[in-house]
């Protein structure tokens, strides 16, 4: 028996009560620690990442204050080194990737039409591990033990001889935490996207946002182990006298650079691809047509994911690597502009044949395209080895990567926040404040970072705590610092908007933007079980294609947490799977992981202690329940869905 899905009233009032009882979990502080609801965990990821964004922004503001005048006295060299290291580390490891993970974890089950992610307990554990890593490094920073060797921590400067104390050790271990969290989230997203889609959502009907999260996740799986290896080697060199990076004993300082940048370059695409997914997800609502060029968009995202792994040596052009080999990376670095460009051309084509509606999400989208194109142009320029040898490690590069990150990550993120805030909270963000937010940020970004191109070409290197009066760099630096103030004010406006709208924003219905994605087929905010009945899709824009008559499938259990597992390619129903429900053990295992790695910074005793504790906690975590009744049913393909017994 098929039924129609409507967001507000449900045909069977008892269904939502029963499902809610099963899926909601306990209230209170302990209940919050036990939650395995993907929406709750994703909101935590995003909130925590935004806190780190603010902290990193404050670090940046302080740095800009120091650099606004030559020989300024705001920060001394040691403190400045800690500040710029923390700014880079926070933005790259603690904000950009976790926030995109959070967005992916929130949206993926909703966009593919399922109740939760594939591995809810692991998902929860990943968040706690990330939080512990962030607290670790900020605790260090607040007691003068923050890392001071740059976010990239080149050896030998970050090695045992030239970085005394525990600063770099804390940094190296923080990487382990964020990397574990990212790997867990990647596995969760891939499995959910491939095995838990709504029936009928074949590969060519998967939303572009989900594709971008999936490609991001594959990239995480291949890239993160490189930086984990690098940080492991560095920690071992510093703590137990190995010689991985010691040339005198057969190691090589360049090994660090290869390992780090093999991760570091895909890292920026890990951040960027979900940004493109967000734009493709929200453009239809603001141009009133499906996004143009779905196959081109998806293939571009996949191509970018592959090509991103062939670029890393462009960070090492000034090293004595053979020039012929370096030239390969020049070619790849330039060619990556093609898939990126194709995406932009598709978006412009969508706008060209659509009817633009100028609300804040569209403004941020337009801003992101403009800023990213400028960053992309300088990106192709610095693919050239001779040109890069002049501007490498100067403010030209600082300008380039801030343009591409602001254009490809931050502006799409803000666009997504304005777009999905109604879905997550049930209230609309203020449109007026949104426009102020956008314009202040747009103007601020250009004011801060455009002069840096000139500064780099005039010879100002990066990572300098001050500069001399006679260099003539003072004026442009003052302009850049003024721009930082403008950006700061735009973030203040944004925060005010969020705080105000949470209480006083207009109530959003289930589909305030009249959008086409599946996430708008349920209430705002979604109930704990996402959809009362599993939707069935027949195209790429389910809500536009079926209007009020979105077909659904019934048959999942109402007395326990059960999800539908479908085949990977065509999303035909395959089996039903029981989820474990809410549990505190992911949190406890995460704490033992924290104990393991943090104690290791100070003593090798961390290994036996942490292993015993972790093993015990993990055994309890995966211990099968005695009265577990798996009702995994293999459905023969020929049985019509309506005949499925409950």
């Amino acid at each position, binding site marked *: 028996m098929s039924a129609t899905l409507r967001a507000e009233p449900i045909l069977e009032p008892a269904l939502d009560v029963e499902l809610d009882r099963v899926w909601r979990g306990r209230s209170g502080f302990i209940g919050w620690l036990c939650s395995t609801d993907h929406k709750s965990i994703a909101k935590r990821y995003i909130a925590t990442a935004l806190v780190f964004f603010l902290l990193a922004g404050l670090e940046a503001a302080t740095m800009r204050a120091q650099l606004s005048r030559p020989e300024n006295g705001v920060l001394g060299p040691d403190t400045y080194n800690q500040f710029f290291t923390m700014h880079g580390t926070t933005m790259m490891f603690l904000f950009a990737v976790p926030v995109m993970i959070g967005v992916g974890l929130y949206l993926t089950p909703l966009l593919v039409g399922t109740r939760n992610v594939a591995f809810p307990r692991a998902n929860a554990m990943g968040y706690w591990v990330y939080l512990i890593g962030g607290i670790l490094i900020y605790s260090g920073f607040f007691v003068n033990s923050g890392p001071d060797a740059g976010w990239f921590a080149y050896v030998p400067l970050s090695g045992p001889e030239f970085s005394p104390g525990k600063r770099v050790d804390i940094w190296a271990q923080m990487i382990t935490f964020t990397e574990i969290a990212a790997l867990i989230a990647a596995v969760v997203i891939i499995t959910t996207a491939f095995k838990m889609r709504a029936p009928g959502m074949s590969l060519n009907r998967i939303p572009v946002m989900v594709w971008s999260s999936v490609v991001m996740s594959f990239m995480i799986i291949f890239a993160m182990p490189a930086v984990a290896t690098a940080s492991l080697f560095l920690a071992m060199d510093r703590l137990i006298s190995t010689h991985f990076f010691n040339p005198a004993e057969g190691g090589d300082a360049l090994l660090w650079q290869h390992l780090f940048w093999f991760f570091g370059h895909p890292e920026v695409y890990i951040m960027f691809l979900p940004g493109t997914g967000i734009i493709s997800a929200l453009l239809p609502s603001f141009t009133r047509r499906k996004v143009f060029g779905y196959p081109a968009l998806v293939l571009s995202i996949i191509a970018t994911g592959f090509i991103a792994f062939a670029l890393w040596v462009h960070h090492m052009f000034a090293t004595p690597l053979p020039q012929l080999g370096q030239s390969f990376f020049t070619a790849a670095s330039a060619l990556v502009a093609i898939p990126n460009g194709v995406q932009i051309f598709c978006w*412009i084509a969508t706008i060209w044949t659509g009817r633009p509606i100028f609300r804040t999400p569209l403004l941020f989208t337009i801003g992101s395209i403009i800023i990213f194109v400028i960053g992309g142009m300088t990106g192709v320029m610095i693919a*050239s080895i001779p040109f890069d040898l002049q501007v490498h490690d100067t403010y030209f590069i600082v300008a380039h990567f801030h343009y591409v990150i602001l254009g490809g990550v931050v502006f799409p993120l803000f666009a997504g926040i304005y777009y999905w805030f109604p879905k997550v909270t049930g209230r609309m963000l203020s449109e007026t404040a949104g426009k102020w937010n956008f314009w202040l940020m747009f103007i601020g970004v250009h004011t801060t970072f455009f002069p840096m191109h000139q500064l780099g070409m005039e010879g100002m290197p990066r990572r300098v705590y001050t500069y001399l009066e006679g260099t003539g760099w003072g004026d442009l630096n003052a302009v850049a610092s003024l721009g930082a103030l403008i950006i700061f004010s735009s973030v203040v406006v944004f925060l005010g908007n969020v705080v105000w709208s949470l209480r006083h924003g207009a109530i959003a219905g289930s589909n305030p933007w009249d959008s086409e994605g599946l996430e708008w087929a349920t209430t705002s905010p979604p109930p704990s079980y996402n959809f009362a009945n599993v939707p069935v899709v027949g195209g790429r824009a389910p809500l536009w294609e079926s209007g009020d008559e979105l077909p659904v499938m019934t048959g999942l259990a109402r007395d326990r947490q059960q999800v539908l597992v479908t085949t990977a390619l065509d999303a035909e129903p395959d089996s039903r799977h029981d989820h474990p429900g809410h549990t505190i053990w992911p949190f406890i295992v995460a704490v033992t992981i924290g104990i393991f790695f943090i104690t290791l910074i100070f003593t090798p005793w961390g290994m036996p202690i942490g292993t015993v504790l972790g093993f015990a906690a993990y055994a309890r975590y995966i211990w099968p329940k005695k009265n577990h009744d798996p009702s995994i049913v293999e459905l023969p393909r020929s049985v019509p869905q309506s005949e499925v017994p409950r």
Partner: protein
Amino acid sequence: MILQAPRYTQQSMVDPAGPKAAMVDHFWHFLIITASIVTAVVFITLLIALFKRRRPVEPQEPAVHRSLTRWVSASAAMTLVIIVVFLVLDFRLGRAIATVPAQTPLRVNVIGHQWWWEFQYPDTVPSNWISTANELHIPVGRPVLLNMSSPDVIHSFWVPNLSGKKDLIPGHATETWIEADSAGVYRGQCAEFCGLQHAKMALLVIADPPAKFNQWLTASRAPADEPGDSTAKAGKQVFLTAGCSVCHAIAGTNAGATVGPNLTHFGSRLSIAAASLPNNRGNLGGWVLDPQRIKPGAMMPPNGLEPDQLNAIIAYLEGLK
């Protein structure tokens, strides 16, 4: 002003004074023009798309879809063409700047320290080797082959008016070449984060006509001048007994340490503290008395010198022409 010296050029890669920088500067013109055109085209298209008057066109119509597909494909193809042109030009340029000109180059060893530059001028006759610091003298119009290494952390040698940069990596011997087309003083700076005073690890390249350069080279090979007056003589004593000789060397005296920069002809240098300050009595006094005030974190400690000792040592050092 960094220096009162004449002919001092502001650091800038778009103000080339040597063949390598000039070639990159030309390439930069191609890059900025192409990028500006492409950016303008994209922005104008975007703005038109946003603000043009809407004709009631049904986007799902096959004809519209085909037309859009053609435009997007054409744009992608155009991008590819531009990139290929860029790559061809870039590879040719890359080969050109990597090729040392046919002339016999001058060889200089560059050793990067935290946070100063050591320049050695090797010679087949061992007693003609000289070691100087932070100021690289080169002849105009002759390529200079730099053999670079670092005993501590990674540094990067960069003089934007003359050439792109090259890293100095412990465990590797890296090589690059520079050449100046015209006489002048060009400032460079370390371009790889190397610790507390990375910001103030600058250098000066002093390009002189070949005759003047040879004069300088010959004069540098001579040992240090004997102190002229009694103050300078007292200064030499202070230098040798007050701990300066523990780190610094002056050829022709008993001071032979290689921890800090060689000071043999210090008086003729244009700058001190890795091109952080002009070389004059006031600055020198401040630097010797308390280097940590100028470069906090530098390896040179504050010296508890009495005022007359300080005067004497300044007189001695300034006399080492």
